């Protein structure tokens, strides 16, 4: 049984629960709200708690009230609709609405941006920008609570939305202020990696298409950037999010990162930026020696990727065109001539062999002027040019830059923008990320397999008290838990937990009086 331990008695559980109000069965959530309610009536904090409670209800309510129509009466037909739905490339408005209603983790998104349970300006003054179904773009939306946020998203049913900075005032009030009065005060430090920037070095796909082979470029970029942010800048709370098609975003959520002014953001972007100039500008990496520790470390991370991805998977230098470019990056003319001659005689020589040729020919002494160190440095530069992260640094430089929210649907692919665990970045496969239609199908499949549970839901939902099932001891599953979205939401939750733990530490220092109240609100 999940609640062999009563939440009121166990401080450790209470901690967990504050962070994760609608935690899955392993936590002792079910009885929490009930107890809470009785306590809350005797408590000053009643209103606030009630808010939270109703938030909780909301998530349960929808599956119960709206979903049963399709789910219980005719699950098969629902499946049929799904399978006959057009290509995932187009997500219709009903599907989108169902996704927001049943799957989108509003509460966690709220907690993530709010840095706590009690609604604060961190969330209330945060700008959201909605792209509506008719492609209208609504900026400066803001919401006081998770509940209002959810309601408005359901009402507008945007095809996606983006997250902007926290302003010093409510962004909706901007028109009442004199010009220049509204100023951004904080936002996560963000990074954007997009595979289109790699088009000149990936041979497998181009433009918007991706495959497992070229996704490795994103993986290595994530590793390099993540390591630098953690080891060099000391950031800890870095959320990587799949952008839905061919890239990834990083959200650095540490308090210190959120409050960075633009010039400091520019400094980080410059620190991480390496490639300069476009495709036509010749050698784009010209590092001074000795290598900066960040560069030598990145080089160590990237070397194996170069050997595997660039030389084998992509076989980048197999075409004579690309081989020419490689030669242009080498420093010695005599060596280049020898290599060119050799490669022209065997046109389909593999990249690995060509790369090895450089060293072997250099050793045979084709050139007397070439120093080994010069060649080694040139080769290092080449490795970096072909593997070093290509960041869209403009995104990182400005606090006011908007970035697509995690967990929204990419309108082109129908895939959910799920978080990626950077520690297991290699295991992430963008092509197996669930699409919205797939997820809705999984809910129905689950409910069909577990009819009792589904029925329980229905009964449950009709009652005004959503916790009947808790009394009976079986906690009702949230819809996302029935689907392959669950591991991603779970990861997001654990990420938030880590973030909130640090936030809480900071806040307690500032205001000791709040501790008492906070302990109370933990009992979710």
């Amino acid at each position: 049984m999940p609640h062999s331990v009563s939440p009121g008695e166990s401080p450790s559980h209470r901690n967990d629960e504050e962070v994760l109000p609608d935690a899955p069965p392993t936590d002792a959530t079910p009885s929490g709200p009930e107890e809470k309610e009785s306590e809350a009536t005797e408590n000053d904090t009643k209103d606030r708690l009630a808010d939270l409670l109703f938030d909780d209800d909301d998530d349960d309510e929808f599956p119960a009230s709206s979903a049963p129509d399709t789910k219980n009466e005719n699950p098969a037909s629902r499946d049929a609709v799904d399978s006959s739905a057009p290509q995932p490339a187009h997500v219709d408005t009903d599907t989108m609405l169902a996704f927001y209603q049943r799957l989108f983790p509003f509460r966690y998104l709220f907690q993530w941006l709010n840095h706590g349970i009690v609604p604060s300006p961190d969330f209330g003054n945060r700008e959201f920008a909605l792209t509506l179904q008719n492609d209208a773009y609504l900026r400066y939306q803001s919401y006081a609570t998770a509940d209002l946020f959810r309601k408005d998203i359901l009402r507008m049913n945007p095809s996606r939305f983006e997250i902007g900075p926290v302003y010093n005032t409510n962004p909706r009030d901007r028109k009442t202020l004199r010009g220049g009065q509204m100023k951004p005060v904080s936002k996560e430090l963000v990074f954007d990696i997009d595979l289109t920037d790699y088009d000149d070095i990936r041979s497998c796909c181009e433009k918007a298409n991706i495959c497992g082979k070229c996704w490795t470029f994103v993986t290595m970029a994530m590793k390099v950037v993540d390591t630098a942010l953690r080891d060099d800048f000391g950031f800890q709370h870095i959320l990587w999010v799949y952008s839905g098609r061919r890239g990834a975003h990083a959200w650095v959520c540490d308090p210190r990162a959120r409050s960075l002014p633009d010039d400091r953001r520019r400094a980080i972007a410059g620190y991480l930026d390496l490639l300069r100039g476009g495709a036509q500008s010749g050698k784009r990496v010209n590092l001074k020696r000795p290598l900066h520790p960040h560069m030598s470390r990145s080089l160590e991370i990237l070397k194996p990727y170069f050997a595997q991805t660039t030389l084998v998977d992509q076989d980048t230098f197999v075409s004579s065109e690309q081989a020419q470019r490689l030669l242009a990056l080498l420093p010695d003319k005599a060596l280049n001539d020898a290599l060119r001659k050799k490669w022209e005689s065997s046109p389909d020589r593999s990249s690995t062999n060509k790369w090895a040729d450089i060293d072997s020919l250099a050793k045979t002494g084709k050139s007397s002027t070439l120093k080994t160190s010069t060649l080694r440095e040139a080769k290092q530069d080449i490795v970096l040019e072909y593997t070093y992260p290509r960041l869209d640094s403009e995104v990182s430089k400005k606090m006011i830059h908007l970035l697509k929210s995690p967990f929204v649907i990419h309108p082109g692919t129908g895939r959910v923008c799920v978080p990626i665990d950077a520690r297991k970045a290699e295991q992430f496969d963008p092509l197996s990320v669930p699409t919205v239609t797939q997820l809705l199908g999984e809910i129905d499949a689950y409910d069909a397999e577990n009819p009792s549970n589904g029925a329980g839901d229905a009964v449950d939902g009709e009652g005004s008290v959503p916790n009947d099932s808790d009394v009976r001891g079986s906690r009702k599953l949230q819809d996302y838990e029935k689907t392959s979205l669950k591991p991603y939401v779970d990861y997001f939750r654990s990420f938030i937990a880590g973030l909130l733990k640090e936030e809480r530490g900071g806040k307690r220092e500032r205001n000791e009086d709040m501790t008492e109240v906070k302990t109370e609100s933990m009992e979710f």
Partner: protein
Amino acid sequence: MIRQDFHQVDPKRRATLDHKKKQFAAPVYKQQDYPHRLNFYEVPPTAEITLEQFEQWAIDRLRILAEIEACSYRNKSPAETEAHITPLLQKYLPLSSNTSSSLGATDQRLKNERQKDHYSHFILRLAFSATEDLRRRFARAETMLFRFRFQKDDSRERRAFIESLNLDWEPVSDEERRELSEHLVNATPGLRRVDEESWYKVDWERVPELVERRSVFLYRGKAYVPGREQLSMIIAEFTARLERSLELTSRALPRLDEDDRLTPILNHLSKNFGSAESVYSEGEGFVDGAPITAQNIDQLSQHFPLCMRSLHMSLRKNNHLKHYGRLQYTLFLKGIGLSLEECILFWRQSFKGFTDDEFNSRYKYNIRHAYGDVGGDVNRRGRGYPPYSCQKILGDSNPGVGQTHGCPYRHFSVDNLIGLLQSTGVSDRELLRGVREDVEKTRYHIACNRVFEWTHKAEIKRVKEDGTWNQTDLDTIVHPNTYFKRSYLLKQVGRAPKKA
């Protein structure tokens, strides 16, 4: 029982009372002592000073700042600026190190110097926080002054001062430095060995330029900065803090609850900043004992700088000068100590083709106005306008047709300039070639000073040899009235060598 709140000590006002009674109590301020020569100007002054001190201290500091600005304006090298500023600082805003007194920081003289430095800074903050432009220039000039003093500071005192700032700089231990030596060398360009320098750990946000250029070693959010970057970090910190406080001051300014004693002084100060006019204080150009009357101007005009000499020559030639020429010349004459009555007499006699009525109705008022004899309250209080400095004259718009004001070196064509110089008796070919070069390079001051040095070379040599004049007295001339005074005095020395 007085309860002390150790967490929230107001830096300025001491919480010595029950907070409930605080608003009715007379505030008790923390006594400021000045253990260090340098000051980051974090805490505003709270003791009482007289209005005279208020104005005088501000003017003295302003003089220095204007000089500093003028130096940068003229592209002087740091060494030149130092040579120029040091004697002025000694004169107007001395700030001695602790070692200069046997008593150390407790010496009353040092305290007074530091108090003046402290107070004058804050007075000028009030005067220069009003507009974006003034704030920027003030911060720039103050930063340069701070940098200058910082570099001159005794190294031990400097270290003590830095430590007192609580800048959150953690020295890197020898052990850690050895461990990281490879990284430190690789990350820091232009460094050969790590043990040459002392290293500090600071939050990386403090050195964004180094981070952006990837020329500093970072570890877990700390930047490992070599000691030689210390100066730039301190300076950056000083500027950042000053700009922030100026911004705050400007927002508080409209609510400044003040009677009408300070505001006019502050306005006057801020109006004067920027033109080097503030360098020139009233009466500075006066020469004691010189017979300065309307009758003597012709004879004195040999000591005038070329701009005034040319005005005088065209006045004598045309018996008339246009408005701006009159203004420039009148103010100069006022500056050399010509009284209002004598000045009116001088112009009356010079304007030969006019009747008394014409003169009185057209010109007299302007002369009286320039002397502050008539006009609005501000003009009268300020005793008219100050004599124009070189910077002001150079900066003014080009003289139009028939106008004669301005600076000949700047506004005349080179050939006309050379002609004018020759007509005043300057004919040395080597010198004229130098003047041509200077003018080409737009170094008008240098040209003017070059002429001065040539025309007074015998006298300068003498006063240098017998040591009666030091380098300060022979500094670059940046004001026509200084030119006159120096020229006059030098010729006096020439005439009476045993002046003692």
